[in-house]
């Protein structure tokens, strides 16, 4: 898509982009400002950007003690943060281990019923979570999976696996099979071909799918709440602890939001090279 831009177009584009950035980034910016204020300055009328910044919210979250209007409040947000990281990383890893070979099978080795199986896998993503969750609590109880990380990681596959499967599958499909065929003819097994040729070629697709799955796993809320005890809750549940009977601690919620975005953002920035390319379903290479 190469073309020359007129001066007017350049200006209009810049203007449009500024508006877009404003719309999407302003709330984040505002949350960042709130995280540096006390509840009192947050609730000022009219709102103002002039305030004395304080790190009290972050300090409280990290030390686990917050002084609120009624009493001091003990919270374990760092524990929640660790749970989120652990659950998201292990779930996405497992989903990659299970999903990438399956995606490869669907893309390369067309077989009887492959479309049906692929669709069935995808359709798990459509099932309303509440629908399966409630009977699941019963079965988990009986199987001893209630309140275990293993049980949670398993349920998280509902979020991660279909997403990875479908994005990576498209990527595999769009990579020309010629190189793989050549490698196989040279006498290598399918597994060696898969590992040495297909996987590296699909790298960006896998990275991008993994990152999206990570974000969706990170944002999940209901699974851990229903299936696990307090020490296994992610940040999404943990941040609600700042809504207390004696008032909403907006400053601390804002700080919690900022802290919960940071790991994902760092990951996205680190993988930025792959992210956009990886979601192109491989067509660049085609």
């Amino acid at each position, binding site marked *: 898509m190469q073309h020359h831009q007129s001066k007017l177009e350049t200006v209009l584009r810049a203007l449009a982009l500024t508006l877009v950035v404003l719309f999407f980034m302003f709330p984040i910016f505002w949350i960042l400002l709130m995280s540096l204020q006390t509840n009192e300055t947050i609730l000022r009328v009219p709102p103002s950007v002039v305030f004395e910044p304080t790190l009290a919210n972050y300090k409280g979250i990290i030390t686990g003690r917050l002084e609120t209007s009624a009493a001091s409040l003990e919270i374990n947000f760092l524990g929640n943060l660790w749970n989120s990281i652990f659950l998201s990383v292990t779930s996405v890893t497992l989903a990659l281990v299970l999903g990438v070979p399956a995606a490869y099978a669907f893309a390369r080795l067309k077989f009887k019923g492959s479309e049906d199986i692929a669709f069935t896998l995808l359709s798990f993503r459509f099932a309303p979570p509440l629908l399966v969750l409630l009977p699941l609590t019963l079965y988990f109880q009986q199987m001893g999976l209630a309140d275990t990380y293993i049980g949670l990681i398993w349920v998280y596959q509902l979020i991660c696996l279909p997403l990875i499967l479908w994005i990576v599958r498209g990527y595999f499909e769009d990579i020309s099979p010629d190189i793989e065929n050549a490698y196989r003819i040279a006498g290598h097994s399918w597994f060696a071909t898969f590992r040495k040729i297909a996987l590296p070629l699909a790298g960006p697709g896998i990275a991008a799918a993994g990152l999206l799955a990570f974000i969706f796993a990170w944002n999940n809320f209901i699974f851990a709440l229903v299936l696990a005890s307090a020490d296994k809750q992610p940040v999404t549940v943990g941040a609600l602890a700042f809504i207390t009977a004696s008032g909403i601690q907006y400053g601390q919620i804002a700080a919690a939001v900022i802290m919960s*975005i940071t790991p994902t953002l760092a990951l996205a920035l680190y993988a930025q090279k792959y992210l956009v390319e990886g979601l192109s379903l491989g067509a660049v290479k085609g």
Partner: protein
Amino acid sequence: MSDSVNSNTKRKRRLISRRALPYVLSLPALLVCAGILVPFVTAIYYSLQRYRMSQPWAREMNWGENYVKFFSDSDFWNTLSVSLQYAFLTVGFELLLGLGVALLLVRRTRVNNIISILLLMPLMTAPALAALMWKLMTNPGFGILNYFLTLVGIEDFKWGASPSSALFTVVLVDIWVYTPFIMILLLAGLRSLPTQPFEAAALDGVPRWQQFYRITLPMLMPYLLTAALFRLLESIQQFDIIYAMTQGGPGDTLTVFQVEAYLNFFQSTNVGRSAALLMVLWAITFFISNIFIKNWLRLRERARGET
């Protein structure tokens, strides 16, 4: 030693025949997910019962009665209509906006790449928490957005608290959270389009807007469909944003499927109705996705044929 291992694995490889290989590869994934089928079947069973946990003595099979009742239940039709409105409004706007933003960022410059990652930040904010922050920003007393509105002369805009603007408000938050998802998928698609067709068209003197309709859009179709599919299926099941912003109110303005089913289960413990509602929702998503997948496969074939 390595020889024996080698021959061993070779034998194993032969054991996994070419025909069985794809099943072996996809089976673990399928098995892990199939565990979910058991609770799913249980949920179907619940939906065929008169089952309210606070009245255990009245529990009995009533077969399709929960479903039949929906036909004469105005609350159900309201739920259906609100859910569809919400889903189509959000996905429609998000597709348009996402496409627009992707077009703005299509050049591979460093600045564009950084912006595209930064724009993902709303997606990284858990919707339940994002909604809480928006609720504060739209507070008529000290919300920053209301302050901006008063600056341009709009007083007393009630956002989620008024039936006339509640839908607009939650749709706006949904757009804020999820447009980046569509943007990043479409951006990937746009950047992967081959250049030849555009060069040829430019040589033929085809105007740019025609190039967009005749070349860009058709070739982008698989990406648009993927994005629309994933979003539509999630959007029709929206819960976090709506529940956190308005709890389904004011009145019955925003009682979408998951909000109704959630209240039915967790508050009323009316398991039968809750499960039946969710089954209807599941059927809708299954239907939509079927149509999409068929088109998706066809379009991908075509798009690949063109390159």
